[in-house]
Every structure is written in structure tokens, then in C-alpha cells.
């Protein structure tokens, strides 16, 4: 219950700030455009370049989303209010992660067709598998991102530090997402990259497991 309430609260805050949501989408679209121009106009390996572009755009745009959700909470005093309710910290964390999953998922769904069109890759038969990889990637990103964003709450230059701490942690997830998406778009055969799906799943589970006992001290630290 807490989980859903927190997720809805965060999503409502995002929905109220339409300018930010529009900026987030424009930013991710611009990243796809810039990278496709840099790789193009004749692509050597469109599947590889498209998958790298797609995930790079999502990861960079995601940092904006994570820091913005922190700012919104700080401005409205929502973080303190949440703690005062006495809700279970892990449920709060899961709620925030769910909101970030939905936000990042929306960005992914926007960027996916743009990247597909610009690079002329992908077909509908592999779309469910691509969405499956996206789910693994986005859940992992949101899980690690929510944890680090909460940690960076009290820091000076937190946007910068969030990137410095978060991106290296996300490297295994990012490499896995790019490799599996590339395999799907290239020939649809994911056997050579099956290990990377396991890496992504382990990364997701690890973030959620670590947060189960670290989110409470993080909350205390930000008090």
C-alpha cells in the first residue's frame, strides 16, 4: 500500500511539472539525434550503433529524472513528511523505484521508435524481446538510481556526484543492455549474449537486495 501511494505521489509530482517532462523527452530525443548524426549518415553496423545510442540516451536522460525527483521532494518537504508517517523505509524505496521505472520506461518507449527510424533497425517480431531487455535495464537503472539519488541528497553538486557514482555502477547493466539489444536487432539470436541477461538480472536483484537494508540508514543520514 505504501509502495503504491509513494509511487503515485512521485508520478503526480512529475505530471504537475509538464515543462520538466517535456524537457526530459526533448533531451533524450536530442541525444539520439546527435549520436545518429555522429555515427552517420552511412552506418557501418546500424544494429550496434542504434542499441548504443538508445541506451546512452536513456541513461543520460535518466539522471535528469532522478535528480529532478529529488529536487521536487526537497522543495515540497515530501521526504520529511514521508518519514513522519512512520512508513517502512523499504516500501518507500520500492515506491520511488516504481515511479522511476515508469518514468524511465516512458522515456525508453519514446526513444525506441526514434532510434529505430534513424538507424533503420528492428522489426516487430523482436519487439517483445527488446521490451523484455528494456524492462531488465530500466528496473536495474531505477533500483540503483533511486538508491544513489537518496544517498546524494545531502551532497553539494549532487547532480555531478550522482553521475560519478552511478554510471560506473551501471556499466555492467549498460553493456548487457547494449549487447542483448544489438543481438536482437542484428539477427535475433541471443545465444552468444545469454550471459549478459544473467548479469543484468543479477544487477537488478543486487540493487533491490542491498536497498532492503541500506535504505533506512540512508534516510537517517539525510535527516
Amino acid at each position, binding site marked *: 500500500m505504501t509502495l503504491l501511494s509513494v509511487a503515485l505521489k512521485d508520478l503526480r509530482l512529475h505530471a504537475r511539472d509538464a515543462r520538466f517532462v517535456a524537457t526530459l523527452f526533448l533531451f533524450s530525443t536530442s541525444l539520439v539525434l546527435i549520436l545518429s548524426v555522429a555515427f552517420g549518415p552511412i552506418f557501418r553496423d546500424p544494429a550496434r550503433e542504434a542499441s548504443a545510442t538508445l541506451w546512452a540516451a536513456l541513461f543520460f536522460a535518466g539522471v535528469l529524472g532522478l535528480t529532478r525527483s529529488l529536487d521536487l521532494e526537497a522543495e515540497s518537504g515530501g521526504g520529511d513528511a514521508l518519514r513522519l508517517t512512520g512508513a517502512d523505509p523499504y516500501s518507500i524505496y520500492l515506491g520511488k523505484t516504481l515511479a522511476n521505472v515508469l518514468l524511465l520506461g516512458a522515456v525508453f518507449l519514446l526513444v525506441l521508435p526514434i532510434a529505430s527510424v534513424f538507424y533503420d533497425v528492428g522489426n516487430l517480431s523482436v519487439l517483445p524481446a527488446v521490451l523484455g531487455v528494456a524492462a531488465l535495464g530500466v528496473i536495474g537503472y531505477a533500483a540503483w538510481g533511486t538508491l544513489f539519488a537518496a544517498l546524494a541528497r545531502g*551532497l553539494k*553538486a549532487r547532480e555531478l*556526484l550522482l553521475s560519478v557514482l552511478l554510471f*560506473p555502477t551501471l556499466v555492467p547493466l549498460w553493456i548487457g543492455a547494449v549487447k542483448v539489444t544489438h543481438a536482437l536487432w542484428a539477427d535475433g539470436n541471443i545465444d552468444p549474449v545469454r550471459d549478459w541477461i544473467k548479469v543484468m538480472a543479477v544487477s537488478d536483484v543486487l540493487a533491490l537486495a542491498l536497498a532492503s537494508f541500506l535504505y533506512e540508514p*540512508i534516510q537517517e543520514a539525510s535527516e
Partner: protein
Amino acid sequence: MSVLVPKWWSGLTQVLWAASLLLLGASLWMVVRAPVEAQMGVVQKIVYVHVPSAIATLIAFGLTFGASIAYLSTKRWYWDAIAASACELGLVFATIVMVTGPLWARSAWNTWWTWEPRLTTFLILWILYAGYHVVRASLRSSARRTVCSILGIVFFVNLPIVWKSVEWWRGSLHPRNVTMTGEMRETLLLSMAAWLVFLAAAFLTRLRLEWAREAASARGDARVPAAAPGRVSA
């Protein structure tokens, strides 16, 4: 634990420094005398610094992990001091690994750097622990110890990945283990002992600094950069 540094601390530190200098001198002598490897030539001798530094890195970051858990459980300042001191030394040794690795790779693989699993994961490890120190330096509030302890735990997740990367990923160029015999093996073992004693001596010296800082903070000495306020137990 008192905030006053016990007298035996200085004595032990001096003994360890003396032992590490002796051992490092002896290992240098052994490295010079050790046979030159047939294929790589004299460059192979980098391994006598590279491997002990890598092991020292793992030990130091492992200590950071253990002390971070202990700090979150007990909230005693000295666990944070141990974690910070070990992490700083771990980063120094990780930097040595990052410098000596490419020097060896240039001769072995004909390239300074390649994106193979061990190198990539170790670079990530280095960036993460460098980030630990950036965060530590940028926080002056009481949250610093808790935040850094959490980072010390989260970042440790990468250590088994670095360790097992050569087995988990196909196409790894990095040697899985170092097999040596005779004089080369003896040289490597002595180098390892020397660098580990050096790590212990440097750790105690660095920890003493944290200890002194805590003592000054407890006295309210304004000249010392204030450590984050924490529980100082008797």
C-alpha cells in the same frame, strides 16, 4: 575505545615501517637477481609489483567493507576511521595496479589498453573508490560517516566481479593466475610479503591521523578540520 592514541601504537607502527623497508629492500634485490623471462624480457618483472599491489588493493577494500558494516551496526567513530584509512590506501594500490598493468600489457599484448573484462572491471572499481573520496571530501555534515559506510558496502560488490571476471567472460586476455617456480616464485612471495607489511604500516600511520583528528575534534580544536560529529566511546 579512547580518543587518545595508545603508546604502543607508535611502537608497533615504527616496527612495521622498519620491517617493510627491510623487506622492500630485500625484494628489490631479489627482483634484480631474478631470472629474466624468455619471451617478455625485463618487462615481466613488473609482475613483482603489479600482483602484490592488486592483492593489497583487495585487502584494503575488503577492510573498508568490513569496517563499513561495523560502523552501520555500532555507529562507533573508529570503524569509519578504519574504513576511510583502508579505502585511501586501497586507492593508492589500485592506482599502482592501473599504472603497472598497461606497462606490462604494452609488451605482452602490444597495446597499452584493451577493453577486456579484468581491465574494464578494475577501471570501474578505481573510479568508484575515487568517487568515495570525492563524496567524503564534499560532506562535512554528520551524514558523512553513514553515507561513506553505505558506499563502502555498495562498492564492494565490484570486488568479486573483478576477481572472477576472467572466468565469467569469454575472450579474456588477462592471465587467470600467476604460476611461477624456483627463484621467480620466491621473489614474488617476498615482494608480496614486503608490500603487505608496507600496507599494514601505512594503514596504522593513516589511522593514527584519523585518530588524532577525532581527538582534536573531541577537544574542540578549531585548527583541525572538523570530523563529522559521532559517538566517541570510552
